[in-house]
């Protein structure tokens, strides 16, 4: 059982900027939560506080009920996929994947056989078998993306964090990877927090979405519920109106030829 709770979490950067305000949020076991909001609303900040890359300036973050505010990043048992992938350029794909396993400490420490078994497993799952000896710069964007995903998953993280993992891919590949991420989640059941500013991505992936604006939580519920019952004007315009506009555009586009025929 994995659960994550944010209790009244605040983040104020050194320059005094309040990036996150009184955020209270809970993520259930095996849930796929999407953090959605416009650029600069504090999504990445929230995720990075949970990951331990950014100090919390107020409130508590709990994983499995335990307060982790001051736990080092590596000790929290999380996996993270960065927008820029952040693969280690000097290591082969195999070493990129196994690095986290080799760094495990204490009772988690793994022996060589177990490490190579796990790397093989994850490489198979993500169809990376043929590329294990290559360096990251020899891979395509989509493959790098999968390595980044694999590197986060291979440690069997309690929670998988993804910060706009698909924004560097072209539309076709994004669509494909989106399906793959959801499939992986259903297969592995890893609790996942996914950050995006793309409404469609959020709607298709999420079990629940948390909509943020200016560092404050606007609504936290199932995606369809947010669409049908927006909590306030911001959600109405950012989510509902945006999707309606998209649908209208699409409809207009496909109606035209028929009208001409008539």
């Amino acid at each position: 059982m994995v659960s994550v709770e944010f209790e009244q979490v605040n983040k104020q950067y050194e320059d005094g900027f309040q990036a996150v305000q009184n955020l209270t949020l809970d993520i259930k076991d095996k849930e796929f939560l999407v953090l959605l909001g416009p650029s600069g609303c504090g999504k990445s900040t929230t995720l990075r506080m949970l990951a331990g890359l950014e100090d919390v300036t107020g409130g508590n973050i709990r994983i499995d009920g335990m307060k982790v505010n001051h736990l080092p990043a590596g000790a929290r048992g999380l996996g993270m996929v960065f927008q820029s992938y952040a693969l280690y350029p000097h290591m082969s794909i195999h070493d990129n994947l196994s690095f986290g396993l080799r760094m495990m400490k204490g009772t988690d420490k793994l022996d060589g056989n177990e490490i190579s078994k796990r790397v093989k497993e994850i490489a198979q799952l993500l169809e990376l078998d043929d590329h294990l000896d290559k360096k990251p710069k020899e891979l395509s964007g989509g493959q790098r993306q999968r390595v980044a995903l694999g590197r986060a998953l291979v440690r069997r993280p309690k929670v998988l964090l993804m910060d706009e993992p698909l924004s560097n891919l072209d539309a076709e590949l994004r669509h494909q990877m989106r399906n793959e991420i959801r499939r992986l989640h259903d297969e592995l059941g890893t609790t996942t927090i996914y950050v995006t500013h793309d409404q469609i991505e959020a709607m298709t992936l999420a079990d629940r979405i948390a909509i943020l604006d200016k560092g404050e939580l606007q609504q936290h519920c199932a995606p369809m519920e947010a669409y049908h019952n927006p909590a306030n004007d911001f959600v109405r315009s950012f989510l509902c109106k945006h999707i309606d506009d998209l649908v209208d555009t699409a409809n207009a586009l496909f109606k035209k030829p028929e009208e001409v025929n008539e």
Partner: protein
Amino acid sequence: MTNSDDMRWWYVPLEIVMLRRWLVAAFIMNVLLLAVDYLRAESDLLLLGIISCLLFAALRASLPNVNDTLRRDISLVLSAALLGIAVYRLLRTDPTIFNIWIHCWSLLPSGLTLFWLSGRPVTVWTSRKLSDSAIEYGLMRNANLSKIYHATSTHITLLHFVAITVIPLIWIIDIAFSEGNALGGQIGDSFTTEHFSKILNGDSFWTWFRNSLIVSIGTALLGLFIAIPAGYAFSRYKFTGRDASMFSFLLVQMFPGIIILVPYFMVMKTLGLLNSHLGLILAYCVTALPLCVWMLKGFFDTIPRELEEAAALDGCNQFQVFTKVVLPLSTPAIAVTALFSFLAAWNEYLLALTFNTSNDMYTLPVGLASLISSTGQAWGDFAAASLLVSLPVALLFLFFQKFLIDGLSAGGVKG
């Protein structure tokens, strides 16, 4: 209609295009070369040289335009005159390589101008209204030839640079292998290895060599040991006095070495570090550090922070993040920095001369200088020793070449 008129204006035979540039170069070179005639105090040749320069300027100004036979004829006359003067000047001087090279700078441009201006493409271009197909052909010809002409001019320029660097070297090599210790004589007129054997068999050279090696390697290692953490801290952390200390690093560099020489000497004397390797190593580190720290900071700045964050999430502590991710990525920059401080120490003369009073502690540059004064201008020995000193450096460069290029074109971590 307008189209082909436009083309008529646009089309200039490549010969003219090249001459417009090359004649400027020829003019500048000839002006510079006047200095040779001046130094040789040959007044009539100097006068001819000045006339040549003026003629080159006139020739460049009179290069023809389209449908301009008059200017073409003037140019032809000018270049013929230039060619005549050049041949006369060549015949007047001794036929050494240097003289021939000098006169090539007026011979070749004037000859080429004469040849090209009287050639068919320019003749047709200046005398007639070209048909469309002729222009099309001319443009194609330009495109094909321009690569060759550009390559030629690039190579001539590069050859000059190579000569500038290589000739002194050849000179030194020749002196080192010539008999006797005097300067002069033709290149390659005698051959002996006496200077080398004398130096290599003497005790002093190897003592100096050892001293230089210890001091230079010590400087490189100690320098890296301090500069790597310092550069990393400057690149990654914010702390009080960060900017001030970065600036103060530069401040030290603003003074010429001779100003800090006396304070250095006092410090070393108080610490009892005169005539010791450590004293020199410390002094060299202080001088080399600012640049090393700045260079490494610049490189660390190009390593994305996210890489370190990923490593932190993979379970590394701060030290492991540094050793397992940052350091391996920085090898090129570290190699360049090490090489830099090594060379600075290897070639340094002033401090080494001041701090060390005994022959046992001399480094190579100091030892070599003593060779000249003590044995009375032993140029042959000196040249041989210089070559022996440069050899390790040359080898080092050869070995580090790949790193150097990587290190200088830093920021290769993206993607």
